[in-house]
């Protein structure tokens, strides 16, 4: 204390001295001049700031990502339930006669849908009314606007991509802002908007009175222009300095831009709330965030809720503070009535409505983070970040919302039954692909699919276990003179000496060895020892080559353990690897994007289908047949609990050491799906492919429309009865004879005795009787 007093004394003396100089007129003039120059410079600076930011800011739109548009045409498989689910997800409103875009009506199996319309690289679709009839799980009739029988619903927006900032926006031009909203906005926020020049003395006076009354700062008295300045350039703090800068900036803004431009910027800029780290800016995004619909489609009470939020987005949050928000909304409605924007009857009617906000997180926007992550990566590969940020691109993706939801549900349901509540940290990933086009239809990377974070589908590199076995068998079948599905391999212990290591001695999962069996059974029953023997015989090099041909891009170390799937791949990479198996030997790069359009809907780039023949179709067809038996008789037969036998599908289970990873990868003619289940820390999860992954795959596939794999052998493959040794042709009904799809080079020239007589059905029956009586 004492020290402080001593120091304060000399300072006081100095102050007295300088105070004398203050009085000097010359000095005053100098200060004034300097002040004026500084002020002018300040103004010029502010002016430049205002113009630069205003001109560029409005166009800083994020890239928006859309799901694939739902294509409607007679014959399309689509259940009534799925159709209605889609309409609900897209926030179509049920209204008799579907009077406005974004509405629909249902009468039994008859639907009228008023679509919203959109632009696409083929021109897109107009907003139109569709007459749709559903029946027997498909669309039976469709009547579109100009007598056509083909239409698309607008693609659902599923997210936006920002190059670096977390700000989002749905830009709405002023002519598309509901006029009622503008009236409400002006009535509540700035009644003199069209009269003042950026600053309203009347408004300030009103605020001052209110502040004095309250004894603290309660009202800003800001005009819309000032609020915009605050939002654009300044922090939210109510400091005097901010106020001092805000005033000239508001006036400058009014000097340079028209009232409508300022209003449009305000409506698209204003802060309306927070969604985690994402700020909700602008009425367009606010409408999406709170009501799940475009701003144009909101009803008066919903518009009033948004306008009411301006007074305090968190204070009046309609989700967390519904009572407060409702009261505020009704005040806005009343003000709108006073201004003549609503009739008495409307005021009455809309004041009675609930808030009708959609539950948070239920909007399809931002619902599919794992898929959006894939889109982001594919875009980042092709576009520099600044292009993505500035242009407000429209990205048309390949996401099939129904497939995505089915995949999420299948994973969630199964893991919830295996590991309720996630106590055992069991998690998983699913990738669904349309194999012929390579379109990625769904990506799930978490049992809680909306959570961001580790993208297991794209980043979890896990040993693929027995998923590798089809590749080993394929490598064998590519040498048809030596191998066919009938070729016998021994399921017996083996020991492969390794340099600088213990010898490799693989075991079967049941710790048994079943002895000689055809390659067909090795795959269907997933026998490790037999397969290891086959792989060693074929050669590690050959197997690695086949894996590369199938699209594996990682380095493959030539250890014998790769034969049993020590190779680590992500679920997405497994989908790539199985894709040529599903298409009969064509490799098609997996794409998540089909088109990129600019903000006006003009096409900028296409990601066209490309395809390459990487494998001859004959061995692939033969392999597919064996993989179908995996599902019908083998380790994947759990699939049949959900999927009827009439739907021909093929696949393979996979389980890694100590039950750390459970896999199933399989396909029909139109869907290829890969399921992985395990733990993030790579500890044993106690799951096998059959128990951990097959049920997910089965449920997913059963809930999507499937086309069976073609059973027609290509020219060059025929079904042949083979004797049990796999070295002689046999005949139908002969002892132990089995029928296999064979390449001509695999078919032995000699037949067994029974086979050389062309087989003998009768003999077969006789023998059966003989056996009966023996």
């Amino acid at each position, binding site marked *: 204390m004492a020290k402080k007093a001593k120091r304060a004394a000399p300072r006081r003396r100095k102050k007295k001295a300088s105070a004398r100089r203050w009085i000097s007129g010359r000095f005053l003039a100098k200060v004034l001049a300097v002040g004026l120059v500084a002020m002018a410079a300040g103004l010029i600076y502010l002016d430049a700031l205002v113009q630069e930011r205003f001109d560029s800011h409005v166009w800083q739109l994020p890239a928006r990502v859309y799901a694939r548009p739902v294509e409607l045409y007679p014959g399309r498989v689509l259940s009534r339930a799925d159709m209605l689910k889609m309409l609900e997800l897209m926030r179509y409103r049920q209204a008799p006669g579907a009077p406005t875009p974004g509405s629909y009506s249902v009468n039994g199996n008859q639907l009228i849908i008023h679509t919203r319309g959109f632009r696409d690289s083929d021109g897109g679709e107009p907003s139109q009314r569709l007459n749709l009839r559903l029946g027997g799980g498909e669309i039976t009739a469709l009547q579109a606007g100009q007598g056509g029988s083909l239409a698309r619903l607008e693609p659902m927006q599923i997210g936006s991509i920002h190059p670096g900032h977390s700000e989002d926006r749905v830009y709405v031009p002023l002519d598309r802002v509901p006029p009622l909203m503008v009236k409400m906005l002006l009535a509540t926020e700035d009644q003199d908007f069209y009269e003042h020049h950026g600053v309203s003395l009347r408004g300030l006076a009103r605020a001052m009175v209110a502040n004095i009354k309250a004894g603290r700062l309660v009202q800003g008295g800001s005009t819309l222009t000032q609020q915009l300045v605050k939002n654009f350039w300044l922090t939210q703090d109510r400091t005097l300095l901010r106020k001092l800068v805000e005033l000239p900036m508001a006036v400058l803004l009014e000097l340079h831009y028209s009232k409508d431009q300022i209003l449009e910027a305000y409506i698209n800029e204003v802060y309306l709330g927070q969604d985690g780290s994402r700020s909700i800016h602008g009425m367009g995004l606010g409408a999406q965030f709170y009501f799940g619909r475009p701003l144009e489609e909101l009803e008066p009470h919903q518009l009033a809720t948004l306008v009411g939020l301006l007074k305090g987005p968190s204070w009046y949050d309609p989700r967390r503070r519904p009572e407060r928000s409702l009261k505020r909304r009704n005040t806005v409605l009343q003000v709108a009535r006073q201004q003549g924007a609503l009739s008495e009857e409307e005021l009455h009617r809309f004041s009675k409505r609930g808030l009708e906000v959609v539950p948070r997180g239920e909007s399809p926007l931002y619902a599919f983070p794992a898929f959006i992550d894939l889109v982001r990566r594919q875009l980042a590969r092709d576009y520099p970040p600044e292009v993505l940020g500035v242009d407000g691109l429209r990205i048309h993706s390949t996401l099939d919302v129904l497939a995505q939801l089915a995949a999420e549900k299948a994973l969630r349901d199964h893991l919830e039954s295996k590991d309720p509540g996630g106590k055992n940290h069991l998690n998983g990933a699913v990738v669904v692909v349309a194999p012929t086009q390579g379109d990625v239809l769904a990506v799930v990377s978490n049992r809680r699919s909306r959570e961001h974070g580790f993208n297991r589908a794209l980043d979890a590199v896990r040993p693929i276990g027995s998923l590798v076995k089809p590749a080993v068998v394929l490598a064998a079948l590519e040498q048809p003179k030596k191998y066919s599905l009938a070729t016998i391999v021994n399921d017996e212990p083996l020991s492969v000496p390794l340099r600088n290591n213990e010898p490799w001695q693989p075991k079967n999962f049941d710790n048994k060895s079943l002895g000689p069996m055809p390659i067909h059974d090795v795959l269907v029953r997933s026998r490790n020892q037999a397969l290891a023997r086959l792989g060693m015989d074929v050669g590690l090099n050959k197997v690695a080559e086949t894996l590369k041909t199938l699209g594996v891009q990682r380095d493959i170390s030539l250890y014998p353990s790769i034969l049993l799937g020590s190779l680590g791949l992500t679920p997405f990479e497994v989908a790539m690897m199985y894709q040529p198996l599903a298409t009969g030997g064509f490799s098609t790069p997996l794409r998540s994007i089909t088109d990129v359009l600019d903000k006006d809907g003009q096409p900028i780039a296409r*990601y066209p289908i490309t395809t*390459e023949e990487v494998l001859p179709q004959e061995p692939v067809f033969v392999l597919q047949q064996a993989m179908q038996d995996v599902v019908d008789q083998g380790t994947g037969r759990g699939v049949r609990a959900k999927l009827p036998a009439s739907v021909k599908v093929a696949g393979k289970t996979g389980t890694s050491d100590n039950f750390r990873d459970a896999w199933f990868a399989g396909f029909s003619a139109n869907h290829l799906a890969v399921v992985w289940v395990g733990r993030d820390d790579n500890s044993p999860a106690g799951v096998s492919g059959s128990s951990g992954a097959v049920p997910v795959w089965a449920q997913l596939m059963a809930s999507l429309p499937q086309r069976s794999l073609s059973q027609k052998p290509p020219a060059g493959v025929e079904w042949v009865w083979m004797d049990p040794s796999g070295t002689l042709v046999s005949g139908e009904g002969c002892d132990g004879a089995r029928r296999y799809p064979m390449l001509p080079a695999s078919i032995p020239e000699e037949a067994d005795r029974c086979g050389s007589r062309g087989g003998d059905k009768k003999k077969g029956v006789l023998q059966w009787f003989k056996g009966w009586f023996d």
Partner: protein
Amino acid sequence: MLLAAMLAGCATTPTTGTGGGYGSSSSSSSSMPSGEPRQQPVDARADLQGSPALALLDRAEGARNQGNMSAAGRYLERALNMEPDSSWVYRQLARLRLEEGDAHSAEGLALRALRLAPYNPGYQAELWELVATARERQGDEEGARDARKRAQELRRGTA
């Protein structure tokens, strides 16, 4: 890279080096000689009988004639989504890609069309010639000769 490919596509003169009796328009009808019951006629109408994809093929043709290749491509891909086993749609896509200057894709798509083609040597020969042209454009002379040989064999078989 993609943009470059598209630009290259614009710079390439459209060609119709595929010959055969199966014209360019999806509405062309082929009249098969009678007395060959096993041979199936191939054109858009036969391959996509009654399918809504036909309307898309027509629109694709219209867009292509106007030089709007990206719209044509989009229409064809939509048709393919509806009819993934249609040889004809793959054929149209292959021809479009060739005109756009993407011979590599054209080859793959034409081979896929062949894979799905119904029994019709004339049609298959035409597809092999498409493959040959695509291979030639990629500088694969040997592959082109091979494809052309297959086309000739098919034609001789039908002659």
